[in-house]
């Protein structure tokens, strides 16, 4: 069996606030296999982005990883000193942010941003790095890359800019790319293109993708496996097709009730009454229990762990006998 390229073990992220500790991510575990696309889905505030930030070591203070481990291949990275972690970012884990309009430094030419990143990680000369950068731009589908590389970000359209962002994230050939809502800010018409470009270029380079989105449609079309998050916890994890067809967690069931078409916003389509609790008001037991149509006594008192209910599938719900307490 191949070793996972990225392995998250019992990750818990906390924010000390005046209301006490807010647990933004609680006890999450998952693996990403080489070349695999793992979709992470959930409403805003479910902890998806925070998980991504935790993996790459960029949680804004005062937030911190309170528990758990993150392994990149056979190297544990959640406790690395900042300097070591910097060598991993960009080099071994790439990250793509939501808004291409704000992800690029407006004052520097694309070339400078690319070359700077390449040379930070790879022992290349200025001109070698430039060649590599042009190649990358070409790969992500920027026409006339050799000329446009010396443009400023504002001279590109939104979709083009996100391609540049992808090129930047991939310029040192990382093994994993964390794409945090990479298309949300884009025009519907280019969303699909960007997803395709990203998927294709990663596939070509053998990079795995952790695709964070609240757009179930994107997941359905892109991901191999999907992780459903609710209130900072993992609700369900399994192959995309299986989860869509036969979701096990009542929340996932609600989520899959109607798979939105690509580009439609999940927030408007949740068919479950009520709203996700605020992080400072997560109920005892299962976080979903106040909204769950199948709630019973145990749900209100005991918290289910995301446990394997059949090979390759995990769910955190007391409906399944295999589920253990967290």
């Amino acid at each position, binding site marked *: 069996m191949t070793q996972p390229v990225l392995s998250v073990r019992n990750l818990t992220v906390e924010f000390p606030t*005046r209301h006490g500790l*807010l647990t933004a991510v609680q006890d999450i575990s998952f693996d990403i296999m080489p070349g695999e696309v793992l979709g992470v889905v959930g409403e805003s*505030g479910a902890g998806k*982005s925070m998980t991504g*930030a935790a993996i790459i070591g960029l949680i804004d203070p005062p937030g911190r990883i309170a528990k758990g481990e993150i392994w990149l291949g056979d190297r544990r990275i959640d406790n690395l000193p900042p300097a070591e972690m910097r060598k991993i970012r960009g080099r071994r884990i790439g990250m793509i942010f939501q808004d291409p309009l704000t992800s690029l430094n407006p004052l520097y030419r694309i070339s400078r941003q690319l070359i700077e990143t390449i040379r930070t990680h790879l022992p290349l000369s200025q001109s070698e790095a430039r060649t590599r950068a042009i190649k990358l731009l070409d790969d992500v589908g920027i026409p006339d890359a050799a000329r446009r590389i010396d443009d400023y970000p504002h001279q590109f359209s939104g979709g083009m800019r996100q391609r540049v962002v992808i090129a930047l994230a991939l310029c040192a050939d990382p093994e994993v790319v964390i794409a945090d809502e990479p298309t949300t800010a884009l025009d519907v018409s280019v969303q699909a293109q960007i997803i395709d470009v990203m998927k294709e270029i990663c596939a070509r380079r053998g990079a795995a993708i952790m695709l964070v989105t609240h757009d179930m449609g994107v997941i359905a079309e892109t991901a191999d496996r999907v992780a459903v998050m609710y209130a900072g916890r993992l609700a369900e994890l399994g192959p995309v097709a299986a989860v869509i067809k036969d979701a096990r967690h009542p929340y996932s069931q609600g989520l899959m009730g109607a798979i939105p078409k690509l580009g439609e916003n999940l927030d408007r389509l949740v068919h479950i009454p009520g709203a996700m609790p*605020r992080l*400072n008001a997560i109920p005892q037991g299962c976080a979903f229990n106040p909204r769950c149509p199948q709630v019973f006594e145990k749900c209100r008192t005991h918290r289910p762990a995301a446990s394997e209910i059949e090979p390759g599938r995990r769910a955190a719900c007391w409906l399944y006998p295999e589920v253990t307490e967290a």
Partner: protein
Amino acid sequence: MKNPTQGNAAPIVPPRPQGRLKAALDSDIFYSWRRSPVTIIATVVALALILMAVLAPWIAPYDPFDPSSLNLMDGFTPPMTENQFTGSTYLLGTDNQGRDMLSSIMYGSRISLFVGAMATAFAITLGVSLGLVAGYNGGMIDGVIMRIADIQLSFPGILIALLIFGIARGVIPANQQESMAIWVLIIAIGLSNWAQFARTVRGATMVERQKDYVSAAQIMGVHPFLILLRHVLPNVLGPVLVIGTIGLALAIIEEATLSFLGVGVPPTQPSLGTLIRIGQQFLFSGEWWILLFPAVTLILLALSVNLLGDWLRDALNPKLR
């Protein structure tokens, strides 16, 4: 200038139901207040000074504005020392006219605060109105207003206030200048501080103007300006409050500087700045209390108001520079 649409990523704060926003905001503010001892002290000091100023006519031991109550021979009495001629004793001593320093400071703070508050209120009114007009109309009007604001911002308030004071001196008949002095001061300081408000409000207005409800209102026949006012004001309340607080401190200092330069309120009704101007003459002659107490009061007042403004800025986190 900053693009007003550009938001900040605020990853830690979970989304809140819109209806409770206000309550939550309030409690947030209260919480950050409680957590900052400096702010608590600043609040207490500011409140004490404001209270002292407002209540001066009732709590001050003497009325320093009533000249007939003064005894010149009481002049230069050191703090808590018996005057050699009159035998009177004053907690903070007396000035060169025999005025009780404590009462003078109370009444002086009253004038300084009054001038500062009125000038700030004037600046807010003017700035908000012009900002709305500029932001709503755009084009030429916007250009003219913002260009004037630019000029205004680049000249120090003192110079502008001096100018306005000069104009007033020329326009107002000699025998009314004294009674008008305080209003001239208010207008002068107000006119030198409006631009910040105008800029903030203009930005917010330009954002709001794009929104659907404005055109909807237009279709429904409501004057969009009214709608804008209703929607823009709550949005800019935070920044205006912050700029206003800091502006209040600035206005108080500006009043002091103008009075120091001799173009402030009449010496028979001294503000803190006038008291400092008077006291500064006695810097080398040993009557330190005439300068020290008003100066400390002024600094405390400006500092506590500034600290409050600073804290408000952090607490409301408005997009400010």
